[in-house]
């Protein structure tokens, strides 16, 4: 990387982009060899995938019909997903404020510095879609439709457009609402956007008739300028040039607008002094348990960013749970199982926040507390919101199946306690801001939690059937928890 940087003209756009890539690459875990292997695999996989598709269908190639309506709808969906992802990255653009300020004080045009940062976002947004679509485009090319090789270029153009839109919306909201409120509004918009995309993606499962009707409508629609992106995918030169030109014009405009915003104020609203917020009059008195419990609930309730992240997690989970547990019909037994899973997931998130992301651990450690008081109070705080949520679900099923409602509550409590225990035993202390990234270094932990909660949900459903298999299913979380406890990292001290 350093030799590549040496080739570029100092302070030019490629030089700044390569510098950014170097800094980000060095922040990742794993050595140089590991990174090279990962890049190699990422580059080769699409080629292997496309070649394999072409080889398997060589006798009767199933080439796509190439309806402009279908392709246009797919591109529109892709733009929405990319916009959601770009938005999240744009909000984090100014986080490394110190380094950014160094660049901003250098005699380099601000637009160029911003363009270099934005290029990183564009790459992150485009990469997953390029990886997914490249085999398909390659397959089409190998089957004689060379024009489809323009497809990856259109994917890049859509990513560039999505990033530009995200930058423009973020800047607009900033001016309209101020940085802090804009951040919250963006997070809420992000949840709605992501939920919309996710819901549309699930439409074939939930409303197959409606979905088919929309597809028919798309395929019989007359051609329009909105079809340019689809025509560009098929390799038509003029639409391709127009799409690429428009995307890069939007990128240049947004970089200019964002540069103005960066010069005027920091992108990261955390760097700004907060607007004074009045709190309620504090009440003195109360046991250590009570003040700790109250403190945790206050901190959770006063962090809109965290609430929106947790809300997003739950919104994504609802359709998945509906698919897994309802199987087309909603019964109290299935709802009880879904409630246990949902409650456990929420408890796990909150348990991580209160147990692992304590803002002042030394303060709690220096307090004259009896053993276990702090943990019990924190657990109680982490379990309160999920138990309220599960209680509401239990009320829904109470009249149809009192047993399901009665079983849902203790099983959800058990799921919450079990997932909280996993968090406490395995997760290192961290800052609250790391909430979204907490599983990034431990996929095993994420998988373990999924199995734990899934098996407890299964136990709930089997108990309601009723079936003796429930006892066997109960062995899974029990063994899993025992294993996690046994292999938990021991503190050095």
């Amino acid at each position: 990387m350093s030799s590549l940087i040496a080739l570029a003209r100092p302070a030019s756009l490629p030089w700044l982009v390569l510098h950014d890539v170097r800094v980000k690459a060095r922040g990742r875990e794993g050595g140089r060899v590991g990174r090279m292997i990962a890049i190699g695999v990422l580059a080769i996989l699409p080629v292997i995938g496309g070649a394999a598709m072409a080889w398997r269908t060589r006798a009767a190639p199933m080439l796509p019909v190439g309806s402009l309506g279908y392709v246009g709808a797919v591109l529109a969906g892709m733009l929405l997903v990319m916009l959601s992802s770009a938005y999240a990255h744009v909000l984090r653009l100014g986080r490394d404020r110190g380094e950014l300020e160094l660049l901003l004080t250098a005699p380099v045009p601000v637009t160029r510095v911003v363009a270099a940062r934005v290029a990183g976002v564009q790459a992150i947004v485009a990469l997953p879609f390029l990886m997914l679509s490249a085999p398909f485009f390659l397959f089409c090319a190998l089957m004689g439709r060379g024009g489809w090789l323009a497809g990856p270029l259109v994917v890049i153009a859509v990513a560039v457009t999505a990033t530009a839109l995200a930058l423009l919306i973020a800047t607009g909201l900033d001016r309209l609402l101020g940085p802090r409120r804009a951040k919250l509004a963006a997070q809420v918009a992000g949840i709605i956007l992501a939920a919309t995309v996710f819901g549309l993606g699930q439409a074939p499962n939930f409303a197959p008739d409606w979905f088919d009707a929309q597809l028919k409508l798309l395929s019989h629609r007359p051609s329009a300028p909105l079809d340019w992106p689809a025509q560009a995918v098929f390799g038509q030169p003029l639409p391709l040039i127009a799409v690429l030109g428009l995307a890069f014009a939007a990128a240049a405009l947004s970089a200019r607008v964002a540069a103005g915003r960066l010069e005027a104020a920091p992108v990261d609203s955390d760097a700004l002094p907060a607007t004074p917020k009045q709190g309620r009059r504090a009440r003195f008195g109360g046991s250590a348990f009570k003040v700790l419990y109250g403190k945790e609930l206050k901190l959770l309730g006063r962090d809109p960013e965290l609430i929106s992240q947790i809300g997003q997690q739950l919104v994504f989970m609802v359709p998945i749970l509906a698919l897994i547990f309802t199987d087309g019909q909603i019964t109290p037994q299935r709802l009880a199982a879904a409630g246990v899973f949902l409650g456990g997931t929420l408890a796990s998130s909150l348990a991580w926040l209160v147990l692992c992301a304590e803002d002042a651990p030394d303060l709690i450690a220096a307090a004259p507390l009896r053993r276990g008081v702090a943990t019990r109070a924190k657990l109680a705080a982490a379990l309160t919101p999920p138990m309220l949520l599960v209680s509401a679900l239990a009320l829904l099923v109470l009249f149809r199946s009192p047993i399901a409602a009665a079983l849902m509550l203790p099983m959800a409590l058990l799921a919450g306690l079990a997932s909280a225990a996993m968090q406490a035993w395995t997760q290192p202390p961290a800052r609250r801001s790391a909430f979204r990234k907490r599983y990034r270094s431990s996929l095993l932990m994420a998988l373990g939690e999924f199995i734990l909660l899934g098996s407890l949900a299964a136990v709930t459903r089997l108990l309601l059937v009723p079936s003796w298999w429930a006892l066997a299913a109960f062995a899974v979380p029990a063994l899993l928890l025992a294993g996690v406890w046994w292999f938990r990292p021991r503190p050095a001290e």
Partner: protein
Amino acid sequence: MHAPIPALHIRGLAKAFEGFQAVKDLDLLVPAGQIYALLGPNGAGKTTTLRMVTGLARPDAGEISVFGVDALADPIEAKRLIAWLPDEPLLYDKLTPNEYLAFIAGLWGVPAAEAEPRAEALLQRLTLWDKRDIRCEGFSRGMKQKVALAGALIHSPRLLILDEPLTGLDAAAARAVKDILLEHVAAGGTVILTTHILEVAERIAQRIGIIRAGRLVAEGTMAELAVGRAEGTTLEQLFLELADA
């Protein structure tokens, strides 16, 4: 007649981290009712020693007694007597100063009837009264340090331990902190502080301990430390001579 119980008595204290001996066979005696400055170069073991006193780290060997209470055998009783104020304030940005003080009072078991007027007095004294119901997230470093100091004092600790209490404070905030420390001692409390600002230690501390590589290399009043040296020797000269030897 019995000798007065010292505020802190450390004997043979030792602590190692992954092979690095941070504190070695340290003996220290801090009399009650005084300001004691614990000085030393970076990495000398000051913070590690104080963290062991406050129960935040477990020593490998040695004894710690706080006003006669064995801090290792009965850490909860010892913690009741101590307040710990590190250089990074132990605060919650989403709580208001009043809520923070109510929280600390709850942790240390101070009844509401005592805690509420004391909180009001501290907030007034530290010029935080107007900000008492505003969340700390927008506060400057100096204001946060003052909130943390109020938190440390809300349970009337007999032993107040401060690690670099003046770091990042402006002149007015630093003055307020020093005044409060002097008032605390005048009211019968004891203060142990670490600082790199030697003038502060020279001016407000009755006794000074200099620690180097985990061991106490000199201890006493300023006059005792200067014995055998040229007249007018400053603490800075003494420190550089002892700490870098």
